[in-house]
Each structure stands twice: as structure tokens, then as C-alpha cells.
């Protein structure tokens, strides 16, 4: 089975961790599609959604911190510690691929022609970021595009799903599913419940969730390669689509999670 991986930006430590985890399991990787971060349309979309201050914080945390000594979020530090403990260097995805003889290609968009050409013989694409994927891309891999959604499906679709689970009092979970044309509406492979410490804040939990992403995605790939999986269609009426959570709600989510004072 020919497996490819997508990558949201070249400095994605989560993707480096995932590739390493698959390599450790001796799973061959046929190629990695790295989306170029500096793309006007993409930057404009982030600025619109996060506002300039939010975009700046994210940019500083995910990219500038790789080159300059700036304060990073707890979320990033947890992932870095996890990778370092496994003897990994914190290097860009392209450098990691070069060192390990894994083919890779930079693309402006996953939906572009060069990107689709690159995966034309794929059986499974593992999604590790890169923006919304369109039908033309989705129909190429024979099995599909595997995603690890950091919330329970079909209950919580969309963005900031870990935070929404905590706010709504729905037990956190990662859901492995195959991407379809909707937002997180594709067939479910497996939902993996999470137990996070009550005394930690959301930034810490998000950091833990990056590690879970790596481990759960590896588990999902192994299952699919072994043919040991079922596809369960979602009933989207059982859930809702959520958007970026306002910081005030995020802080309420945190206190609600700590006190577990959910409104039933």
C-alpha cells in the first residue's frame, strides 16, 4: 500500500514526529507533500480568522521560535520535549526527509495540479495539515485520506474542538476518520477517548493532544495497512460545526473542566 503524508508547513514538529513514528514502525512512506507557509491567500485567511495579534502569536510560536530565542507556548514546549526524549532533532520536515531518504515536494496548495500528480498512485494519504482538501484530491487515493480529529465525532466538528469538548462537558477524544467533502463529516474508523489531567490548563492539554495525534495516527495507519478496520458513516445531525473559540470562552472552558461543573 502506497502511503503519502501531507504537511501544513515545513516547520511542523507534529509532522516530523508522525513521520518518525511511522518510520519506527517500519512503515514505508512514498512521499511527503509540504505546503508552503508563505502563501498570500493562506496568510490572509489566517489573519482574517485569528486577527493580526492572534496570527502574530501563532507565527512567533510555530515558526520564529525555530530560529530565534523567543518564548514559546506550553503547547509547543510539550511537543518539543516529547520529540527530544525520543532522540529527535527539532528540524524542518524537508531536512528530516532528506536525512531519511524520504521523497518530499513543496506545493502552494494541496489541491493544486502538481500536488495531485504527486499522489496519483497513492492508496492512503495521511493528513497532517495543509488546509481544506477538495474533491479532485480526495478521489485519488484508493483507500482515502486519513485524518485524526482532536474531538469526538459526530458531536463536535470544526475548529478548536478540544476546547469545545471541555466547554460542553463532552469527554475529550480523538477520532480517526476518512476525509470527505464536508468538514469532518467522513466515515469514522475509530474514536479514541482521552483522559487528561484536571490540574492542567488548555495550552498543556493541547500539547498533550499533539502527542496523541502522533500516536493515534500511527495506530490508525497500522490498522488500515493490516486491513483491520471498518468505516462507520456519520449521522451529521448528531453533531454541530464549531468555529474558533473566543478567548473568554476558552478561559471558561478551562475553569469548567477543572471544576467539572458541567451543566447536564
Amino acid at each position, binding site marked *: 500500500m502506497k502511503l503519502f503524508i501531507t504537511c501544513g508547513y515545513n516547520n511542523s514538529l507534529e509532522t516530523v514526529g508522525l513521520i518518525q513514528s511511522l518510520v519506527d514502525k517500519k512503515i514505508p512512506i512514498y512521499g511527503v507533500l509540504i505546503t508552503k507557509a508563505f502563501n498570500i491567500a493562506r496568510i490572509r485567511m489566517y489573519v482574517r480568522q485569528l486577527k493580526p495579534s492572534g496570527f502574530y502569536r501563532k507565527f512567533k510560536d510555530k515558526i520564529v521560535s525555530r530560529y530565534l530565542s523567543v518564548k514559546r507556548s506550553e503547547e509547543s514546549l510539550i511537543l518539543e520535549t516529547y520529540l527530544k526524549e525520543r532522540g529527535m532533532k527539532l528540524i524542518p520536515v524537508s531536512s528530516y526527509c532528506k536525512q531519511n531518504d524520504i521523497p518530499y515536494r513543496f506545493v502552494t496548495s494541496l489541491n493544486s495540479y502538481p500536488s495531485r500528480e504527486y499522489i496519483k498512485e497513492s492508496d492512503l494519504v495521511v493528513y497532517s495539515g495543509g488546509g481544506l482538501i477538495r474533491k479532485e484530491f480526495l478521489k485519488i487515493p484508493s483507500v482515502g485520506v486519513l485524518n485524526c480529529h482532536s474531538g469526538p465525532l459526530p458531536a463536535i466538528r470544526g475548529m478548536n474542538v478540544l476546547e469545545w469538548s471541555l466547554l460542553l462537558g463532552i469527554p475529550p477524544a480523538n477520532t480517526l476518520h476518512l476525509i470527505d467533502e464536508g468538514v469532518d463529516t467522513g466515515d469514522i474508523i475509530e474514536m479514541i477517548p482521552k483522559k487528561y489531567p484536571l490540574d492542567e490548563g488548555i495550552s498543556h492539554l493541547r500539547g498533550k493532544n499533539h502527542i496523541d495525534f502522533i500516536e493515534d495516527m500511527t495506530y490508525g495507519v497500522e490498522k488500515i495497512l493490516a486491513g483491520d478496520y471498518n468505516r462507520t458513516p456519520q449521522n451529521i445531525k448528531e453533531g454541530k460545526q*464549531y468555529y474558533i473559540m473566543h478567548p473568554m470562552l476558552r478561559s471558561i472552558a478551562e475553569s*469548567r473542566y477543572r471544576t*467539572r461543573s458541567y451543566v447536564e
Partner: protein
Amino acid sequence: MSVDILGEMYERRVESALKWLKVSIDVNKGNGSSAYYINCRLPLGWTKAYPETTGYLIETLYDYALSFPEMNLSDYAAKQADWLVNIQLSSGAYMGGKVGSASKPSIFNTGQIIFGLIRAYLETQSTKYLISAENSCSWLLRNLEKDNSWLIGSYIEGYCPSYYTRVIWAILYANTVIKSKELEVAMRKALQYYFGKVNDVYGVQDWSFKKDEKAFTHTIAYTIRGFYESSVLLEDDDLKVLVINMADKIVRLREVKGSLAGRYDERWNGDYSFLCLTGNCQLSIILSKLFLETQDVRYFNASLKLFEDILPYQKMRGSNNIRGSIAGSSPVYGSYMFMRYPNWPAKFFLDAYLLLKTSKEKLMPQKV
């Protein structure tokens, strides 16, 4: 975006807006709130009092009276209600436009004044306000056309805008006290007229000030609020579903685009060259109300964002004539209320703030 959006720092904003509204009344010696302030030298500056918005401003003054006792807001509110009773036409109608301007009786303005009269009655039990409101309702009822539209007394001759749903709400609100079956039946029928103007994407025909123009979010919110409050008062589930669909549209637009447009056509094609600041506050109110009713936190989330989007544009410096005010548009030279600081963005800002506070309290962890 700020974690502490409803904290102490923002209480100062509320206080400034209230003080500014008081100035808008003081400049008329207590007889009505000026429509707007133009930040220029004389002869510009404060305009004459505006009965329509003074009417619905009364509710806000009462809402904040207990929180700011030193401001005597109840006295201000009652004085405005007295003034409105005094300027009412013998027919029960109110003139359109600013006081003293050459105008004619207005359907919409009469409706908006009913809110203040009824609230003043509920606060004081003084029947003069109730009688005045009843006369207004009767005049509105008498002027309903056979197809349940209102054609006389409109802003544009012969044009019946869909934001008249807010007039229906005003009458239904008055009817919670008047308790007339005739009024209720008539308003149920009138609602059908506007319900029929809703299109397949939950836009509404004629929701703008002028026919075939894009509607400012101000009048879009007027239209939706009219539908929403009527659905609550009449316990009408079809209307409720309609409002939820409209709200979902607005939530999605705000989230995907990062901010709302200043105006939209009936198919939600937006003009993003400016923000209609009052429209944001009004839509924030609707979303907070939906959250409180449905417990769907997504509405609260979007409500917070719509409210926060306008905060940088509240004037927090300058003279008493400007400090605390909110312009019609951002930028101030935008298409809605060009270069003006009307009293209604401040009113809706205050209303939105109160609802956000209530929503937050609802969501905060309860002690177990």
C-alpha cells in the same frame, strides 16, 4: 481578542456610553435625546432631539438604573417618556424625523416609541404612558393595508420595508399589557406579509432603507429582531426556525470572513468597505438571546466576536460631547451615518453588553 472582554476595563466603556447618552439628553434640556453628534464646530455638533430612538432608549436607561444609581437614569427615562407623551399627535401617531423638522406621521417611529412608553408604564404604573401607547397601537392598526403591509407613513413613499417586523414586535410587546385579541390576530397576519419576503438563503426582500439597495446590518438586525421577538411572544416555532437559520448565516459569515460587512444584499453579498457599528451590536443582542434560549454556545461565541469587533471604535477620549460615543460606521466616513455619532449605536452597545454579561454568568462554573 481579549479574555477579559466583560471585565472592569469594559465597565468603564459602559459608564462612558451612559454618560454620553445623558449629555445627548441634557443638550435638549431633558426633552429627548439628540439623534447624533457631528464632531465639528458649530453650526454642526448636536442635532435636535429624535423621538424614535429616544423611545427605545428609555428601556436602556431603566435597565442600567440600578447599576448606576448616582446617574439618576430612572429620572431621565421618565422625563423622556413624559416628553414623548406631550409630543404625540392626537391621532396617536408620532412624527418622523427629528423634532421640529417638516415631516409626517411615521409608522416605524411610532412603533419604536411604544417600547419606551410601555416600559415607563411598567416601571411607574402611570397610566398616561399606557394610554399613549394604546393610542399609538390603534393608529398603527387603523393604517394596516388589506395585504397587511403599511404604506402610509413610510420613510420612502409607497415602500414598505421588511424591518417593520420591529413595529409588529412593538405592538405585540404593548399587547402583553393591553391584552387585545384583535391586536394579536392582526399582528399574526401582518407577520405573514414579511415572512413571505424571506428567500431561499434566508435573506429578506426589502430589508433595506431603500428598495433594491443593499441593507445595512442595522436594518437587517431590525428585521431579524422583529421576527425573533415576535416568535417568542407568539410562541411561533416556524418563526423561531427562520430566525435560527438567519442567525446561522450570520455566524458563518462572521467566522469565515473574519468580520461582517457593513451591508448585504438579499443574497448576502456583502460590502466589506466599512463596518456598521450599530448593526454589529444589534446582531450581538440577537445571538446572545438565542444562546440564552437554546443553550447553543456557538451563538454566544459569535456574539462576543461581533461585540468585540466594534470596541476599538468607541470614543474613550475627548470632550463630553464625544467621549463614550460610537460612530455610525467604521471608518467614520463609511456609508452608514457618514461622520456622525448617533445615539442608537450607544444604546445597542449597552443592551448588547448586558446580555453578554448574563450569558457569561450562565456559563460560568457552578459550585458543586
